[in-house]
């Protein structure tokens, strides 16, 4: 049974169709990448997987571990092991990153039938995972994403991913706005979490990130459809020829 199975997914926002029949299957242990020009629907797909209610699924299905994902609320999906690293992480004024994370970790643990972490175990976990993405400890006592630089926000997303230990992590343009050092750190963090019991969907506009997070499969999304799929070399090909050269007829 595949981990994620998206079939004929049609999604509209405010009556405007954005995804026009997406099929995508991801198995545990795999890293898939979705590339595509701006406005092609990449973030829409990511948000629908995470359960954003503004996006209306008009046709098709998403199954996760064989279960109907679309029937679950965003928090249930998180409990089941879905994680989205947001393209635009949200600021939460007045709520410290530490407190937020502890609430999140314990909510997910509760969903998974695990005991809540006490303060000591939580802090040990924070230390371990913060080191993974070289996250500045000072940020933890600040309000979530408030006053964070673009790079700090993206790092915080990967840090949260590490804390919540998802089965499927969707990274939506985590590379945008990162300089090369930050990009490498984020990629190292992701690579450290790669494993047989976890899968990734890495959304990116540029091929650059895929030098560091090498995908098993690359898909090209254009105008709400996956128009081509291939191996990691497809990313390099796109880098050279651009999206304009992609042959929609070659979809598969």
């Amino acid at each position, binding site marked *: 049974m595949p981990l994620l199975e998206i079939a004929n997914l049609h999604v509209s926002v405010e009556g405007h169709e954005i995804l026009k029949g997406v099929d995508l299957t991801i198995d545990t242990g795999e890293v898939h990448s979705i590339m595509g020009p701006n406005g092609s629907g990449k973030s829409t797909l990511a948000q629908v997987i*995470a*359960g*954003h*209610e503004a996006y209306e699924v008009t046709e098709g299905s998403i199954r996760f571990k064989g279960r109907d994902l679309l029937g679950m*609320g*965003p*928090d249930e*999906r*998180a*409990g089941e092991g879905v*994680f*989205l690293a*947001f393209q635009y*992480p*949200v*600021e*939460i*004024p*007045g*709520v*410290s990153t*530490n*407190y*937020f994370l*502890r*609430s*999140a*970790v*314990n*909510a*997910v643990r509760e*969903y998974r039938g695990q005991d*809540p972490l*006490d*303060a000591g175990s939580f802090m040990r976990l924070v230390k371990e995972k913060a080191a993974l993405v070289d996250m500045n400890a000072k940020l933890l006592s600040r*309000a979530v994403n408030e006053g964070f630089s673009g790079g700090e926000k993206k790092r915080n997303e990967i840090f*949260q991913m590490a804390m*919540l230990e998802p089965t499927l992590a969707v990274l939506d343009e985590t590379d945008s706005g990162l300089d090369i050092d930050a990009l490498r750190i984020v990629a190292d963090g992701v690579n450290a979490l790669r494993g047989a019991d976890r899968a990734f969907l890495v959304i990116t506009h540029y091929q650059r990130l895929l030098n560091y997070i090498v995908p098993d499969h690359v898909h090209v999304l254009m105008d709400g459809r996956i128009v081509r799929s291939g191996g990691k070399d497809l990313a390099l090909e796109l880098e050279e020829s651009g999206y304009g050269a992609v042959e929609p007829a070659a979809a598969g």
Partner: protein
Amino acid sequence: MTTATTSPSAATATDRFAALYEGARAALAGSARDGEMARRDAAMARFREMGVPRRGDEEWKYTNLAGLDALPFELAGAARVVAPEAVEPALVGAGPRIVLVNGRFDERLSDATEAPAGVTVEAHVPADASVLDRCTDLAPLPFARLCEALAPTAAVVRVAPGVEAAEPIQAVFITTAGDAPVAAFPRLRVEAGAGASVTVVETHLVMGAGATVAASLTEIDAADGARVVHECTADLNESSWRLAAIVIRQARSSRVESAAVATGGGVTRHDFRASLDGPGADCALRGLAMLSRDEHVDNHLLVRHAAPECTSREFFKNVLDGSSRGVFCGRIHVDQDAQKTDGVQTNATILLSDDAEAQSRPQLEIYADDVKCTHGATVGQLDEGAVFYLRSRGLPEARARALLIDGFAGEILDAYTVAAVRDRLKSALFGPIPGGAGAA
């Protein structure tokens, strides 16, 4: 809330207050000191001139006092006995404490024996109302005058020049509600001498379910370089009218912080008035109203910069659920001589229901030419994008919303310096905090 069932012969609230005064005058005179009755009479005369504000009064546009006319209130009883256990949960620490029950000093519940040298905490009628006089130059405060006339006594906290009172001093005002509506007049005076420093916690408790009308007056007088922190909370019932004036006078380089959190009650009106009379004075006013049902809070402020180089900060927030109503009306007034004034005033409201209502009127009135003043007001719903973000991290929807409200309100609550007050407010508002860790 009591609804108006006015019969043609019913007295207005103004008449009723006047009658209360006539009835109480002989007893007040019995224990009065020199000049006290003249001051009371004068205060009452001023109240009668103004009367209970009517619908057309611009200053009271959003707070309708017509319901008072239908309330046959009497003076809160003198002989009520309150058990120490009933007060215990509201106490904030080991510092000196003065407790007034229905306006009278309660020796059994008070404990001012431990007051350090240079600090006095006692009950007596102040010999003047100079801070109130100063703070009503620009606009009157009828209920403060009423309190001046009718308060049997006042809690008076005095800190001698140069003395730092280490422990917070608590003034507790208890009103015992009964079957019949009662009126009460809590009065607090804080005098900080030059260079003195003190934290005063003002606690209002309404005990019982009956209707109460409390016209309260808090006067803070900060001499040169004095530092005063004043933190006010009120545990009211749903039939309570709390009409409070907090008047502050600040001399050179003094700093006063005053905060009031309203978590319920019937109708609450706070009139904050600060007069920054000495150069370099610094004033911070904060307020939070978290309301549901048909609760009503009206925060009115008038901060007067009367001297150069003063700073004022006014931060007020509302979280409104049910059919509650939050009003903010703030005015920074800068006198012609008050150059280099630095004033910031903000009001932010979150509406949690379609029936809740917010009114916000921040105003600047500037007669000096070299000043830096800003104001702003926002009214909105909870950020749904933030709710989704939190839910995507596993937090159930209700928890996500509570966390956002907690964060919004926290900015005001976290500024409470007395930990016991802050924790009590937080657990009352948000329930027990998991692991005891704060939200920020």
